[in-house]
């Protein structure tokens, strides 16, 4: 455990020197602040930020995560020849990246929000939760891919394909299915399909917060009934965190068998 914490500490130390983090913080900060200055009320700002969160966070997390893993190759080799366990190293690297990425997001969005809006609404907390969760999900996926693929270009290519799949293509497939199976009752199917894409999960959790569920008739009723109560929210959050745990576990399994 102490080894794990030490590894995280050194990763943080190393990462915080890069300009990356300053840029990433600045982007969130300026964007949130700007939306408040031009847009106005916290609800609208949250909705606008939602698109950014769903688009940028997965992309940055997965691309940066892969690059980070490849760039940590030296660090890994250095440490693995030392009396250090692979699990500590892998989790150390993972947390050493996800913690600062999450912190940067929370600071970048949180400070302008506190400044402009004061006390937070429910939607705001969901926005933070979803942003952080997606950071963890896509960093985990990035690590998994980077462990599997030795070649950097191939690895980064795969991560971008995976991002395209979850961010864009998956919804296209859902739309196709919905129209192909138009005659059948599809409410349950859409509910189930939404669990298999972390970006969709995040998006729906946020949509429900912003009351858009009311736009949907029966489907919406089913959605709000499912996601609106404690059980559904718990399932959604659990599903989101299964999306973290699974690639972390798969990544670790591959990492523990990997030759350096």
């Amino acid at each position, binding site marked *: 455990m102490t080894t794990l914490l030490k590894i995280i500490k050194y990763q943080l130390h190393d990462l915080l020197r890069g300009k990356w983090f300053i840029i990433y913080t600045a982007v969130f900060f300026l964007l949130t602040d700007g939306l408040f200055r031009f847009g106005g009320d916290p609800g609208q700002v949250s909705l606008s930020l939602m698109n950014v969160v*769903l*688009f940028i966070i997965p992309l940055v997390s997965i691309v940066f995560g892969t690059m980070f893993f490849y760039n940590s190759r030296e660090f890994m080799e250095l440490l693995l020849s030392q009396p250090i366990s692979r699990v500590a190293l892998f989790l150390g690297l993972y947390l050493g990246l996800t913690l600062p990425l999450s912190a940067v997001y929370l600071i970048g969005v949180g400070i302008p929000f506190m400044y402009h809006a004061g006390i937070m609404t429910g939607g705001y907390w969901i926005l933070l939760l979803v942003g952080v969760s997606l950071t963890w999900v896509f960093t985990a996926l990035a690590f998994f891919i980077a462990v599997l693929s030795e070649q950097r270009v191939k690895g980064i290519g795969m991560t971008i394909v995976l991002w395209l799949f979850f961010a864009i293509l*998956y*919804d296209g497939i859902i*739309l196709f299915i919905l129209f192909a199976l138009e005659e059948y009752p599809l409410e349950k199917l859409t509910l189930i399909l939404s669990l298999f894409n972390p970006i969709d999960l995040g998006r729906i959790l946020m949509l429900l917060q912003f009351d858009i569920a009311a736009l949907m008739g029966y*489907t919406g009723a089913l959605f709000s009934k499912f996601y609106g109560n404690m059980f559904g929210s718990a399932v959604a959050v659990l599903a989101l965190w299964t999306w973290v745990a699974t690639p972390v576990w798969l990544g670790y399994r591959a990492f523990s068998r990997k030759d350096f």
Partner: protein
Amino acid sequence: MMSSGLHAGLVQVGANYPQTTISQGLEVSTPGDTLMVHSGTYRERALVVPHQLTLIGQNNPVIDGNFEGEILTVTADNVTIEGITFKGSGLSHLDENAAIRFEETQGGRVSNNIFEDNFFAVYISQSEKCLIENNIIKGQAKTESRSGNGIHLWYSKDVTIRGNYISGHRDGIYLEFVEQCVVTTNHSTKNLRYGLHFMFSNHNEYNNNQFDMNGAGVAVMYSRHVDMHNNVFADNWGSSAYGLLLKDIYDSNISDNQFSRNTVGLYSEACNRIQVEENDFENNGWAVKIMANSMDNVFTRNNFLANTFDIATNSRQNFNAFSQNYWNRYRGYDMDKDGIGDVPFRPVKLFSLLTEKNEPALMLMRSIFVEIMDLAESYLPILTPATLIDEEPLMRMNQ
């Protein structure tokens, strides 16, 4: 002559007066009398006003119907009821029991009364030239089948409904086969179904009312020549909630209204020749849903602000005109500085069309895929109605 007439016609009812019950008072009264009801609770029902009379409450008397049958029925002309609290007309599946019913009368007047927990509160049936004003009407409706309407008009004419507050009924105000009525400055809120409900009622007007947080909003159906202006339709959220639902409405006018935070601001089905002008639509799910069987309606000089969808329709066909509206989504330019955008605006998004056909698709709202699809469609319309277009979008909000 005047004063002696008044003096002679005063009947007092109260614990300390000769007549201790209202039914006794009604019995001794003669046409043209004033029946003064003093404070106290009168447990009476099935009262009938058979001749012209002015009922005035002194110091808030309460008539309690004990939730059985009707409280007061008026069968004579020119009856005024003022300053009395009516409680507990009886819930029934067979009879529409009201606190006050006007039956085939003229010149009735109900003002400054309070109605609490009645099945129906004020029921005007086959009557003319009535005035219902400044009443407070509160029900405790739980289900639609076990509740009645606040103000209910049936086969009536020339009725004015003004300045009332109505909540907790099935429909706040219900009009069926009614003509030449004016509904104004009322506040109808938190009713189970509609704040205001029109059926088969031509040549009516409602203005300056506020309808908010009703189960399904306001419904105007099967009517012609309805004038709707300066009303507020707000906060009607829910799976089948509307700010204003129009069905089979012809030759009407909707102007200067405000539609805010409704699931659907304005819904139009089979409506023709309606002028929709200078309304504000803001923060609605759908500002306007217009079905393809609506024709020759004109939308002009309205403001569309921060709605999830501005216009939705269910077809590629469009027979309605949109011009000189302000759309906050509009991103065109105005080179000649005449205040009108040089590029037309298409207010129907592809996605809204898709969700109209396949509702579960709404789960994809705000998905990047959908945004890309909408963007592509806006440049190269294939599925959205080609003629549903504002050729002259305003650059600035219409004040």
